[in-house]
């Protein structure tokens, strides 16, 4: 029974809680004991907050007892450790924030608490969300629940692995260049990156502010809609949060997709795409066609420039954002005789290699004499990429593509070669540069037993149609029911 409780999705668990067939305390207990049993091996969590989880579970129980009916009352979640949680250590998987305890909650956390969620703990990630494998964590790599020798993807690798291994009912991650969708694909779960501005970034530790967006990782599409409903909407504390009204996301689920036009960008099926991934995605396209959708080939000719554009912009923004870690206000401080030396030693000892590399590159491209050639040029290419996507969405309702060029690779495989790692983000980056929503959902397993993901992207604020197509695909297939072979 306890194991079954862990396997349930939000949509499966919430009604049982609401009808008081199971109690939040019972569910939390089941989750915490599963984490104790399995997480030493997976390492999905940086911090497990038993005490806090119990308190929230008891509170949820009291609220249920008073007849309240919040959609997440008693539902246990994991939060990527990049989201500020009041009173609970938030590390960003970095030594520099190893002992940082935020004095406030991120807006998404406030909204989840209000809806009655229970926070089990903080999920592992690449340091400051910089990476595609969770190997850049100061707290050790997270292992893929499907194959322990493989990476779970990144940067929200802990959030994805925790959902896949039933170490939480659902989780939140953040996505700057694919950091929700790619680990979701590698771990065989659903991951949704909303439109830029749809979800408040207040309390999300900044990496690249014009690209960062928070979103859910879940066991099924309906859960992604449910969680987005809770966290979406304008916030006075984030001036970039969008004033657009939030629609009812559940309403679009179950609508048929007959006659709906799905664009297939040819540049996403070229050189470098693993054959098994291509096979699974092509088969998924056939499934969508079988459901009555019209597939149409489209062209996004600037796709080959996406990685270069993304890394210039992301690193420039990162170098500026991470200037705040100076050993004065919070975080690690290295001992030093004077202020200049203290800054330099604190930052060099506190940050990991990938973070240092990105700060260096970003500082260089923004420095005198290079700004025009790099940052300005990349921002122009970005504008052109958005224009191409806007045109594609004049004729298509959504675009369907692979999420990652290959299934999860082995831990350590990419070694010390940053460029190869960066190139693995090629299919997810466009959505961030253009600020559009994208979802990753399971569409197959490789011969080696690793999940493969299908990506659907929509126009700005097109979450309803993205969820509609994703839900239709999920209803017609069984991939989301597959579970990793865990002890």
């Amino acid at each position, binding site marked *: 029974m306890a194991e079954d409780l862990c396997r349930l999705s939000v949509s499966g668990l919430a009604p049982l809680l609401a009808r008081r067939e199971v109690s939040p305390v019972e569910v939390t207990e089941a989750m915490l004991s599963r984490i104790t049993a399995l997480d030493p091996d997976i390492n999905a969590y940086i911090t497990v907050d038993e005490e806090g989880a119990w308190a929230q579970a008891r509170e949820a129980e009291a609220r249920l007892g008073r007849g309240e009916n919040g959609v997440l009352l008693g539902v246990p979640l994991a939060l990527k450790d990049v989201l500020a949680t009041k009173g609970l250590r938030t590390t960003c998987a970095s030594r520099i924030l190893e002992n940082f305890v935020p004095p406030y909650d991120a807006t998404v956390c406030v909204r989840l608490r209000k809806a009655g969620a229970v926070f089990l703990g903080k999920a592992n990630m690449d340091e400051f969300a910089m990476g595609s494998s969770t190997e850049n964590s100061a707290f050790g790599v997270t292992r893929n629940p499907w194959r322990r020798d493989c990476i779970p993807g990144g940067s929200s690798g802990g959030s994805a692995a925790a959902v896949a291994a039933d170490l939480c009912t659902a989780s939140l991650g953040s996505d700057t260049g694919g950091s929700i969708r790619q680990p979701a694909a590698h771990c065989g779960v659903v991951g949704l990156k909303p439109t830029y*501005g749809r979800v408040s970034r207040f309390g999300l530790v900044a990496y690249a502010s014009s690209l960062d967006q928070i979103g859910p990782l879940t066991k099924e599409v309906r859960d992604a809609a449910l969680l987005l409903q809770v966290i979406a909407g304008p916030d006075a504390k984030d001036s970039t949060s969008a004033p657009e009204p939030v629609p009812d996301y559940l309403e679009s689920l179950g609508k048929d997709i007959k006659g709906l036009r799905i664009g297939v960008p040819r540049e996403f099926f070229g050189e470098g795409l693993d054959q098994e991934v291509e096979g699974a995605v092509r088969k998924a396209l056939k499934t969508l066609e079988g459901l009555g959708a019209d597939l149409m080939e489209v062209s996004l000719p600037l796709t080959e420039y996406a990685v270069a554009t993304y890394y210039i912009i992301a690193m420039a923004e990162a170098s500026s954002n991470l200037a705040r870690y100076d050993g004065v206000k919070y975080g690690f401080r290295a001992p030093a005789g004077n202020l200049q030396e203290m800054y330099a030693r604190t930052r060099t000892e506190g940050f990991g290699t990938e973070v240092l590399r990105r700060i260096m590159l970003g500082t260089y491209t923004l420095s005198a004499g290079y700004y025009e050639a790099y940052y300005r040029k990349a921002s122009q290419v970005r504008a052109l990429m958005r224009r191409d996507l806007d045109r594609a969405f004049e004729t298509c309702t959504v675009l369907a593509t692979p999420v990652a060029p290959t299934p999860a690779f082995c831990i350590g495989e990419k070694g010390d070669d940053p460029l190869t790692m960066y190139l693995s983000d090629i299919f997810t980056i466009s959505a961030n540069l253009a600020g559009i929503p994208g979802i990753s959902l399971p569409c197959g397993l490789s011969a080696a037993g690793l999940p493969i993901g299908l990506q659907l992207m929509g126009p700005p604020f097109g979450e309803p149609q993205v969820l509609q197509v994703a839900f239709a695909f999920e209803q017609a297939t069984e991939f989301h029911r597959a579970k990793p072979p865990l002890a």
Partner: protein
Amino acid sequence: MALTKEEVLHVANLARLSLDPQQVDRFTRQLNDILAYVEKLQEVDTAGVQPMAHVVPLYNVFREDEVTPGLSREDSLANAPVQEEGTFVVPRVI
């Protein structure tokens, strides 16, 4: 546009980093690889294209100028590596 070790050291100083000789060697090589790769952007004709710094066309987000509680001094200082008499303490500047 090859980046020299001296330039890497200059950039490190701008970013307030103190790299050891191995890190300088490694970053010189890797930053050059990355810069050579992103050079391909020059192939794209962007003449007359307005750079996009932000995807959402938001302008002048106004709100009422109301006083609301912010972080207390105690909370603001709670994570400071060194604090004294309600202030942040840093090493000698002069």
